[in-house]
């Protein structure tokens, strides 16, 4: 069984039949392995990390591999049981106490649970959140999951969902930023690039250091159809499953360990 986690791109948002049309299902058909997809729309990397850990730490002999497509650095999550009823007056569809926040959706009417705290979240994104911190946290999550999988003696494949993350990474650690920000940025860059160097190429899909494409880039370059809210369409999911399967074969991943 392969454990798959990520955001809407992994969940299969906007697909008519996500469970059967998303890339993880096609990958299951290609590899002949069962897949458990715990991805969810809007997931922050903090949530992806938590839910992956939660699944892996419960003794599950059936999980033989992990695939994670990490989400945007800037997403965060919060939870507050005392004011919970304010957010979910109309019912919480998946009984998840956590709320996932994306800065691009703070004003969206579709996300009432978030807009109640819009002012605070705007202040957070304007004055507290920085890409440096977000990138470092995500890279740490990637490293920790790699370590956890090593401990369980299972393979782990990871990557970023969107090439904008790579562009952000390059901007943040650009020469001009190093000149402007001095030693603090240099020490973060050192730690982040050091952690990334410890990851194998198949754990750096769409990240610095490999040519493997993010799902979004694959969709763009392949000219695949997109859904109304810009998520990859069903053909893109099928194509990306084959793309990931080729990487799996190239590196002999998820073979039975002795």
């Amino acid at each position, binding site marked *: 069984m392969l454990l798959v986690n990520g955001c809407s791109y992994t969940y299969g948002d906007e697909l008519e039949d996500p469970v059967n049309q998303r890339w993880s299902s096609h990958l299951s058909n290609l590899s002949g392995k069962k897949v458990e997809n715990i991805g969810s729309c809007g997931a922050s990397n*903090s949530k992806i*990390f*938590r839910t992956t*850990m*939660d699944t892996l*730490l*419960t003794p599950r002999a059936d999980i033989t591999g992990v695939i994670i497509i990490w989400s945007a650095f800037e997403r*965060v*999550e*919060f*939870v*507050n*049981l*005392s004011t*919970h009823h304010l957010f*979910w007056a109309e019912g*919480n569809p998946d*009984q*998840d*106490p956590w709320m996932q926040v994306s800065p691009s959706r703070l004003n969206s009417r579709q996300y009432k649970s978030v807009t109640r*705290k819009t*002012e*605070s*979240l705007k*202040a*957070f994104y*304007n*004055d*507290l*959140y*920085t890409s*440096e*911190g977000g990138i*470092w*946290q995500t890279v*740490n999550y990637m*490293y*920790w999951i790699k*370590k*956890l999988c*090593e*401990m369980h003696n299972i393979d782990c494949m990871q990557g970023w969902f969107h090439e904008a993350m790579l562009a952000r990474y390059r901007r943040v650690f650009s020469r001009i930023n190093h000149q*402007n*920000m*001095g*030693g*603090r*940025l240099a*020490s*973060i860059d050192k*730690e982040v690039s*050091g952690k990334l160097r410890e990851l194998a190429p198949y754990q750096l899909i769409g990240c610095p250091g490999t040519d493997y494409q993010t799902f979004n880039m694959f969709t763009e370059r392949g000219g695949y159809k997109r859904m109304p809210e810009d998520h990859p369409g069903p053909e893109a999911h099928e194509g990306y499953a084959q793309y990931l399967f080729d990487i799996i074969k190239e590196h002999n991943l998820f073979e039975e360990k002795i």
Partner: protein
Amino acid sequence: MRTKTNKIFFNGCSYTYGIGVADFTDVYGIQNNRYSKLVANHFNMIDDNAAQPGSCNQRIARNTFTQCTPDETSLAIIMWSDPPRTEIFRPQENEYHFQDLAQITPQGANGTQSYEHREALLHYFTYIHSEERALIHTLYNMMSVEAYFREKNIPVMHLHYKGNFNRVLRHVLQRCEDFSNNDESINLKREIENSINYLSTNKFLTGVNDNINFNDMVKHIPYSTISLGHPDKEGHKLYSEWLINYIEESNVIS
């Protein structure tokens, strides 16, 4: 029992760094009187101390993977900090040059010099932060560290500087009970219990299923006059004696 190595790795906040045992400028005095040094000396080992004052738990976990040299480490001792603490990147700050990310405590938010940062931090601690969020993120930091050292086959002790973690845990579990008529509370409680079950398989877990912590253990000794709110030399000595005894009883270092 491990004999090939000669370091005890410590990480934590100001309590582990040794604030209060000597003047701030007396680095030698701090490094030689803090509990980590006393413990390491007792076992004739090196005090490999990666603590920083004001640390949030995210930094402690992150920094543990960066600073620890597993091949030279016999034992890891992590003293977890206050769950609500957080960290941000503020390159414009001049103080604390040694910190890549500024460590933020809720009680210090009101004293932030920059108006925008102060307002944003007050918003953050009022509306975004919650005990639930702080608790669970701390638990996942603890689990990450636990998993890391298990993979390295190095025993790790989880300690707490104050009873804050235990208090937050009790509050959150009580809140889960108060709201037990909704599925979200049940799910949150399950997530907390799963985390604790995993950590509890480590026999060196303190401050979670009990309320053992540094501050309470030395509370009959007046706080340091150098830095109010921190144990002084005497407090560190007393705590180190408890910790030495705890380590010896466990027979984790030969």
